[in-house]
């Protein structure tokens, strides 16, 4: 192996995304099967940027009704009350439970939106062929992948509030339509993150380096 860092692809090799085995793809082909696990091997995930964009836009559209429609409807002798996600956070805010209110706010509002902004930023920089701050972008991708699941929190909160408060006809809680859209946002963004191929972040800086090294000083 040469001392200059090289990507597996530039040497005609591909690392299996399932089992990690590095193998040589047949010359002229961009896909084959991993000899160890049988998974389809390719240099980069197919149509990564396009499908990730499509899912980001879909999630952005779902994000609007998820936040505008009520997620919980409470029926009490005093009347009927509907809550959106944000109203739920406000209601949770009290001298004793404000830390939980912050957690719910971060998980339900900051994380989904932050995830979409981060993915859009990664996609745009990859498409424009940015060669800057690659390490930071790689770290951002890993963070988005790690934290993204936590936005499921509100779905669980609503589920168990509905499950427990079923004392008809005295008092009961029903799930609002917002829950469906919100669950949609969570699932779609999780799939979007998996569609993005982080190796794309490094492809262009690498080419740039090659050119610099080959051109006479």
């Amino acid at each position, binding site marked *: 192996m040469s001392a200059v860092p090289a990507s597996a692809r530039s040497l005609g090799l591909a690392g299996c995304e399932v*089992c990690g085995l590095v193998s040589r793809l*047949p010359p002229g082909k961009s896909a084959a099967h*991993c000899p160890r696990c049988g998974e389809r091997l390719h240099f980069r995930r197919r149509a990564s940027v396009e499908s990730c964009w499509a899912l980001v836009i879909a999630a952005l559209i779902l994000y609007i009704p998820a936040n505008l429609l009520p997620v919980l409807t409470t029926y009490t002798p005093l009347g009927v009350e509907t809550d959106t996600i944000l109203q739920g956070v406000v209601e949770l805010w009290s001298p004793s439970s404000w830390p939980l209110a912050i957690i719910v706010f971060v998980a339900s509002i900051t994380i989904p939106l932050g995830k979409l902004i981060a993915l859009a930023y990664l996609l745009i920089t990859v498409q424009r062929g940015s060669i800057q701050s690659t390490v930071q972008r790689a770290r951002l991708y890993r963070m988005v992948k790690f934290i993204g699941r936590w936005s499921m929190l509100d779905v669980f*909160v609503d589920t168990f509030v509905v*499950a427990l408060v*079923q004392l008809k006809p005295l008092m009961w809680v029903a*799930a609002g339509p917002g829950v469906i859209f919100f*669950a949609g946002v969570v699932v779609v963004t999780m799939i979007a993150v998996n569609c993005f191929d982080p190796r794309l972040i490094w492809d262009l800086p690498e080419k740039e380096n090659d050119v610099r090294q080959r051109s006479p000083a």
Partner: protein
Amino acid sequence: MSADFARPVARSGLNKRPVFDPALVACPDCDLLQRLPEVPAGSTACCARCQARLWRHKTDSLNRTLALAVAAALLLVIANSVPMLGLSVAGRAASTTVLGGVLAMWDDGRQTVAMLVLFTAVIAPALEIACLLAVSLAVRRPPAPQWAGTLLRGYEVLREWSMIEIMLLGVLVALIKIAELATVIPGLAMFVLGTLVFLLAAMAATFDPRDAWARVAWAAGESLRQAPGLARAAEDKR
């Protein structure tokens, strides 16, 4: 899928036959080709370029994973069979389990959400545990059958969708929310789930997928692979 298998990378130029090189990795995050250093057990090898974790070398991974998986399976069964939350208001009482939550959402006309909760809170954790249980038993005598590979691959997907820890936090928030309306009694399942969260984290941290994959039979047939030890011995003789 039998025809176009990729070729394993040759260990050295001298050896003409393709020999699986276990130390060669392409970073999954940046595709940098590198050779894994000899990491002592308990340490981590990171990518030289993007710092992605390439390999966490575990001590006694198989036995510890098996023990943790058995314990986790037991706790998961208990957690799903005892009440998780109880409530009492104006002389009336109610309680619910994890599955009770799923059913309530289903009855409420939110079937999609009910299935998502069922999958992330019950099915995915159960399958995640079952996968590791089966794998840590199957790969004891390499080469393990191909289905061990299938399970390993399923495990990686399930891990992301298994959300017990998030559900537990969700239950906690629900508990505080309801406390305004009625008296809430945390049930046994909450404490079992709390323990399970730690067990699952420990299980994932103890398991070494690289080690497990190295013990699985190859899809392209064993002829393509030579045990690294054998390959080295053959080279030495020459």
